[in-house]
């Protein structure tokens, strides 16, 4: 078994199962790691293979000596979970409209400021609705005295259809405004939005998108912590109700990245 010499003559094919193995071992970093994550969100075979390797490697952890964490770890877990309870509840009951209105008002306010500063097209696009939808009133000029937190905006074009998602996140709000413009419900599928953190963390579901409406979505703290410049979004097509437990995510129909306005 000493034939694995310095210069490989028969080069190994780096196929998907190989990349999944490298990922499972933790060898990947940077762009390659991001690419693998993105692929796993969209390619069930690849995600399956990653889990296959994870599962085979798992017994090796038995050789890692166990250790007792500090008692404050559980307290921290309990506190973080308690803190997220209201947010999760809001996400579940289709978000109260008052919430949306309040957020839209905030968005309008910064949008006016941002418009003055940079005429950011992505931000303005939030208010351009498909024909037939009740348009949101044009932003009223409001003198912004206090500096607003800079919002993050992502536009997620859906193929060549002219349909798109406009996603706005105002830092510290733990709420995200999602406008699914031109997207219509087909009665068979829902679309689920996923956060791909810039730091290479695990993909996080941001929930199911409601077609043709502006909705506020509550964000779990774990997701807001990952939001930032360069964080990207993917939209997948799922059965009604979103990705079923245990199933792989459906096909990606759109991608976009956050930028700070």
């Amino acid at each position: 078994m000493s034939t694995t010499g310095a210069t490989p003559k028969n080069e190994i094919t780096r196929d998907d199962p190989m990349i999944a193995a490298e990922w499972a071992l933790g060898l990947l970093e940077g762009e390659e790691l991001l690419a693998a994550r993105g692929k796993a969100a969209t390619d069930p075979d690849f995600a399956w293979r990653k889990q296959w390797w994870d599962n085979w490697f798992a017994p090796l952890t038995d050789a890692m000596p166990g250790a007792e964490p500090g008692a404050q770890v559980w307290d921290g877990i309990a506190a973080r979970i308690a803190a997220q309870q209201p947010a999760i509840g809001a996400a579940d009951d289709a978000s109260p409209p008052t919430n949306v209105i309040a957020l839209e008002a905030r968005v309008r306010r910064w949008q006016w400021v941002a418009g003055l500063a940079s005429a950011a097209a992505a931000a303005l696009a939030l208010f351009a609705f498909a024909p037939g939808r009740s348009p949101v009133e044009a932003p009223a000029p409001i003198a912004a005295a206090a500096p607003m937190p800079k919002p993050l905006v992502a536009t997620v074009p859906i193929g060549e259809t002219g349909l798109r998602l406009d996603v706005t996140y105002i830092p510290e709000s733990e709420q995200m405004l999602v406008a699914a413009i031109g997207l219509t419900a087909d009665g068979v599928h829902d679309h689920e939005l996923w956060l791909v953190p810039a730091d290479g963390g695990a993909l996080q579901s941001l929930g199911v998108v409601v077609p043709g409406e502006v909705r506020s979505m509550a964000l779990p703290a774990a997701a807001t912590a990952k939001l930032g410049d360069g964080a990207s979004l993917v939209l997948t097509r799922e059965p009604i109700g979103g990705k079923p437990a245990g199933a792989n995510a459906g096909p990606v129909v759109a991608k976009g990245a956050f930028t700070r306005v």
Partner: protein
Amino acid sequence: MAARPRPTADEAREALREAMARLAAGDQSALEDIYRATRVKLFGITLRILGDQKEAEDALQDVYVNLWQRADRYDPTRASPIAWLAAFARNRAIDRLRTGKVRGGAVPVEEAAPLADESPLADMLLVDAEQAAQIHKCLGALDARTQGHIRAAFFEGHTYAELADAADVPLGTMKSWIRRGLQRLRACLEASEAA
């Protein structure tokens, strides 16, 4: 965290399986049961990868908070709960390592190789023995050098570049060694599944 009589390994596994199912069904109290049963093993993992008590505890918190948020991600038809949780914890620790905040890899590569003699804490839940035997058999069939590098990657969370540096070989050489090893490993594991 009340003290309770030590269950047998099988009972512990079954209790964990049941707690995971309860968590997926939305029962929050299940999380504490899962934590009680798995914290020692999972903290051992994050501590090993991150080499820093504080970082490892933060990673451990992330693991359980994440688990609570997305309990539905666990698929009982694919993996045992403890195998899945172990992989999950290691993946989170590696993620943390790759964000660059942590020095990581507290243990030098040379010490990484055979760890089989180290005895885990008595109340640590272990991954299925049959599955363990197979991966050890397949790893053991690789040449010692390749096996050592694959183990170093797994146990210390080293990247290709770090392994190449440590072994003082070009990056491409290290990649070839490991990829060839992984290819053999896959063939061996798949053969065992087919059998």
